[in-house]
Structures are given as structure tokens and as C-alpha cells.
């Protein structure tokens, strides 16, 4: 919602929408639709099951979506530049194996292993960005290739073995602290903080405005003096570092380094971005919308499970939701023209 406080700016996608009344402004926020959807889903599940509407369950949902959520922040940044990242889950898996193996079997102290993991993931992002920008290659192709590279490296380096017996600091973010009667995971707080940080950066800094401008029209952005090449590579690198943080969150959540992890997380993160109202064509959307998108998936999965609905229906419903969300995006674009 921070976007509403900034002055109109032509490089921003909703710049023409600074409406006079607060109520109208709220209704015209791009996150309003997903938010209403999320609330409706919550009401539905609260009425359907007695366990849904408890603090513990909400804490659980946030905890369950923190890994995909953190990936989805990076994915949002890239999609805002009209790119896409298919490699995020695989890069995260590689990062998690690097961190886990370095700390559990190597001689690195845990904090150094974590730092190394962030650097490795950031390096993948940098490489993605450089290939997209410098050669240039389509993001879809670059990240599809990188998906396989990271996947293979994960399996080679891990020797297909799950890494166990992790030192305490690696799982610290998976620990909980009590808040009233509810147990909150530290990792959930990290994820929420990252969402807020990136939301602020996107809407309140020139960097954020440039990202939107780049997604709307790279040529126009370049002519306006934005260093698009550096910006693109920067966005992919920031995304890579976020995948590294997701890797740490994953380790802390499962308590192991798992080479099989993240295989569908690339698609799950895109799902969250789309459900959050960000356009796959770039330049339109927000990180907060993605947070709501992530929660929609988490709430459906949790709620349906509590209702006792078999998991295949979760897949069915997620698919229907995605198609509906993109349809809405398309219709609103056509009308806007």
C-alpha cells in the first residue's frame, strides 16, 4: 500500500490512478483483487473447519509458504522486467546443498557456509542476468538451461545423498518463539521482512521505478538515461541472493539438506506471482501482491487438507485459479487500452 503515498510518476504503472478518495484508491490498488480473494478463501475455510481459524494454523501457513514466498520475491522482480526465471528452485536446491555440506561435512563454520551459499546463488543470478543482457538471450532459454545446470550440480555435489546432522545455526530460523499462545517461526519473520523491504525498494526508490520502467519498455528506459544493462543484471543477481536466503529457510524448515528439493518451486513461484496480480508481460504488479498470491496457495492447500480433501484437488484448484488470474489480467489490459 506504500505506493499510494508517492507522487505521480510516469514511469510507474499505476501513475495515472492517483484518485482523490482513499476508498477509491484502495479499490483501485492492484493488490485489492487478490486480497479480496484471499479473505474470501479464509472465510470459506473458517466456516468449513474448526481448526482453520486459529493463530497456530496461520503461523503454520506462513511457515509453510516461506520458502516459495522468498523465491517468489526474486521471481517478481524478474517478471517485472518482463523476464522469467525457471531456475530459481534448482538454484535454491544447489545453494541448500552447498550450505548443508559445507557446514556439516566440510570444515566451514556455519555462518561462513551460509555466506558461501548466498554468494553461490547470487553468482547464478549474476550469470543469468549477464547472459540475458550481454549476449543477449531470452530469459526463458537462459534460465531453462540454468535449471538443468543447477539441478545436475546439486545431484553431483550431493552424490544423491541427503545431508543430515546439520549444526544448530543452520536450523535456527526453523525454531519458534511463543507469541501469546501461538508459536512463530523466526524464518516467517525473515520472509515477511524481505517482502516489506523489497516492496519499499520497488515503490520508494529510484531503483524500483527503474525496474518498472524497464519492464514497460526497455528502449524508452534506456533513452531516459536508465542504465538498463546494469539494472537487468542487478535484478537477476538480487533474485539469486534471495534464492540463497530461501535455501537457508528450506534447510531450517526441513532440518536436512535435500538434493530433491525445489523441483516444482519454479512453477510454484510463478503461480504466486500471477495470483498476486503481477503481469507476466512485465512492468505491472507488486511484491505485496505476490505475498498475497503465496498466501492464497498456502491457505488453499492447508484449508483443503484440514477439510480432508485429497491433495489432487489442491492441484486442480490451483490450476483453475492461475488461469482465472491471467484471464483477469488480460481482460483488464484490453480494457485499459
Amino acid at each position, binding site marked *: 500500500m506504500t505506493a499510494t503515498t508517492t507522487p505521480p510518476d510516469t514511469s510507474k504503472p499505476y501513475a495515472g*490512478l492517483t484518485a482523490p478518495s482513499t476508498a477509491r484508491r484502495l479499490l483501485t490498488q492492484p493488490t485489492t483483487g487478490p486480497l479480496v480473494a484471499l479473505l474470501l478463501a479464509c472465510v470459506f475455510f473458517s466456516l468449513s473447519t474448526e481448526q482453520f481459524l486459529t493463530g497456530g494454523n496461520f503461523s503454520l501457513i506462513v511457515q509453510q509458504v516461506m520458502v516459495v514466498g522468498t523465491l517468489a520475491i526474486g521471481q517478481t522482480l524478474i517478471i517485472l522486467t518482463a523476464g522469467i526465471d525457471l531456475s530459481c528452485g534448482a538454484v535454491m536446491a544447489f545453494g541448500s546443498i552447498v550450505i548443508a555440506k559445507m557446514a556439516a561435512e566440510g570444515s566451514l563454520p556455519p555462518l561462513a557456509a551460509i555466506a558461501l551459499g548466498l554468494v553461490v546463488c547470487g553468482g547464478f543470478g549474476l550469470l543469468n542476468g549477464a547472459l540475458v543482457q550481454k549476449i543477449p538471450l531470452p530469459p526463458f532459454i537462459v534460465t531453462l538451461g540454468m535449471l538443468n545446470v543447477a539441478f545436475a550440480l546439486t545431484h553431483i555435489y550431493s552424490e544423491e545423498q541427503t545431508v543430515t546432522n546439520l549444526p544448530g545455526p543452520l536450523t535456527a530460523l526453523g525454531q519458534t518463539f511463543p507469541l501469546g499462545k501461538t508459536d512463530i517461526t523466526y524464518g516467517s519473520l525473515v520472509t515477511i521482512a524481505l517482502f516489506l523491504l523489497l516492496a519499499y525498494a520497488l515503490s520508494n526508490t529510484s531503483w524500483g521505478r527503474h525496474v518498472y520502467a524497464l519492464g514497460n519498455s526497455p528502449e524508452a528506459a534506456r533513452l531516459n538515461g536508465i542504465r538498463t544493462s546494469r539494472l537487468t543484471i542487478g535484478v537477476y543477481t538480487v533474485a539469486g541472493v534471495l534464492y540463497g536466503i530461501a535455501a537457508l529457510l528450506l534447510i531450517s524448515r526441513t532440518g536436512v539438506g*535435500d538434493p*530433491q528439493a525445489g523441483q516444482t518451486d519454479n512453477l510454484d513461484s510463478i503461480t504466486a506471482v500471477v495470483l498476486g496480480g503481477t503481469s507476466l508481460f512485465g512492468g505491472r504488479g507488486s511484491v505485496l501482491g505476490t505475498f498475497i498470491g503465496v498466501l492464497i496457495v498456502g491457505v488453499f492447500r492447508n484449508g483443503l487438507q484440514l477439510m*480432508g480433501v*485429497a491433495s489432487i484437488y489442491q492441484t486442480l484448484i490451483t490450476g483453475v485459479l492461475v488461469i482465472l488470474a491471467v484471464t483477469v489480467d488480460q*481482460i483488464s489490459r484490453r480494457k485499459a487500452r
Partner: protein
Amino acid sequence: MSRTTRLSSSLLRAAAVAGVAALTLTACGSGSGSGSSSTGSGDVKVGLITKTDTNPFFVKMKEGAEKAAKAEGVKLMTAAGKFDGDNAGQVTAIENMVASGVKGILITPSDSKAIVPAIEKAKAKGVLVIALDTPTEPQSAVDALFATDNVKAGELIGEYAKAAMKGKAAKIATLDLAPGVSVGVQRHNGFLKGFGVKEGDSSVVCSQDTGGDQAKGQTAMENCLQKEPGINVVYTINEPAALGAYTALKAKGREKDVLIVSVDGGCTGTQAVKDGKIAATSQQYPLKMAAEGVKAVATYAKDGKKASGYTDTGVTLITDKAQDGVTSKDTAYGLENCWG
């Protein structure tokens, strides 16, 4: 202009969710095999978490659990990973089931080691956890294990293959599962033991991973034949891999003179034994695993008695070309007791 657009887009999104909610209700209302319907006393909840939703082996397992749940008057909840190896999905399923107050969880672990911390958390909350089909590492991470003895399943077809070769020199291809997956390793080792050869023996001329997939089994067999055309014994991790191997052999006109043996005992696989495509298979009983698991949870709910240790749910060698000295049953028996 665009203001109204945003407004209507919000409403559209809201309407979308309302639609999906309706869909959900329909899904539940139909109750078609989702196992969500409570039966009678239904206060006791049992969770069943399989590796995937789509593998017939797990479909059969679910069916067995549903029948047993009805008989025991307990409520069954089911969940599955998105793909074989989806540990995070199974962790989430465990958490959600514990949150909904299950008395016990039956799980076929996708990753034997990685699932252990989540299981320990559930056990700490007083939930009885039983592994079905695949053991955890360590096995003691769960209260009990109901599974096929996979080493024995491999041994049976190894002994059978040895007898069927009648002293002829063997050139063996093994179409395995995937590195580090215990079920595959145990069956593979069991087969070698039953055949009387050691790992690395020169008679094993080709070993490939198939993931238990028919298409990959076919590719693996094609490559093995390329490498060593004289292969005359094929061990396969399961019948889909065996049928893939059969297709590859048939393309080379070799389907009659190569002995294929397998493990699983699914209905398609057992029919393939009857049709002579596969020589023999070790049949396992997923329905029984699930049914006994549900019973164990019901017992725990009633009198607090926890199941423990390993329960062998049995394995039977199925073939229509019985060999002397190897106990087996014919495909009529196999088809009566097959799953899938």
C-alpha cells in the same frame, strides 16, 4: 476509464475465488474416493501420506486404507507429494494433519532421511507414526514399519532366474530405480544374492537407472543392448521398467530368448507375466500394508497401545513357468491378488 477497470478486475478476482470455493464444495460433496466422509463415530482421524497421488500402487494403498477406515469407524485423511521425492510436500502434509488432530499418520516416505525431523515433531505431539512400504532412515524414527521385505522380493526372482537359466552362462542387465533409494538398492542386492553373484561380478554387464518408469526402462534397455547385445537376463525394479525393456527387446527380435524378471505384482505387470512378456515377478501387497496401518491407529486410539517394530506384509513369486526348487504361485493367483 481505467479506474473502473481496476475495480471490475478486483471484483472478477473475488468472483473467481467464489467459483473455486464452489468447486471445492462440489469436490467434497461428491466424496468420490477422497476418503473425506466421516463414518459413524468418526472422531478418530487417521492420515495417509503417499509419495504421489497418481501411481497405481498408492491408489491401491489408499483404497485399502479407506476400506479399513470404514470397518474401524475412523475418519481417513489423505495427502501426497507432487512427485516422487517431494519431501517438502510430505512435511507440509504431516503438519496439516497434526494441526487437524489426527491420532496417527501412515506415510510412505519419499526421502527416507529427509522426512525424519518432521516425523519426530509429529511423534512429540503424541501422534502414532507408521511407515508403509518404505522404511525411514533410521528405521526407528517411526513407531512401526509395515512393508514388503524388498531384499526377499529380490532374492525370489534371483533364485528363479538362476534356476530358469539351467546353468547357461548369464549376461545380466539390471534396470534399477535411482541412486540412494533404499527400495531399489534392496531389491537389486536381493536379486544378486538370489542369483548367487556378487556386486561387480562380470556377468552383470549393464546397470542403468530407470526411476521405475516405462519409457526410461525402454531407453535403458536399448542402451544396454547397444553396449552388450548378448544380454540374456534382465532384472527390473518394477513391471513398468520390465515392459519398457520388453519393448526394446522386441524391436530387436530378442523378446523370446531373454529372461525378464521383476518386482511389484501390479495387475498390468501380472497380466504381462501371464502373457509371457515377463517370466516372473515378486508380488507385494500395498492394500494389506494400508489396512493394517489403519487398524493399528484405531487400536492406539482405543487403548493407547502403540504398534512397534517391523511387520512383513508378505511377498509371493508369481510365474506360469515354475522352476524346480523355487516356490511360486501361478498368474491366476497373482491376478486375484494384484493391485492397481
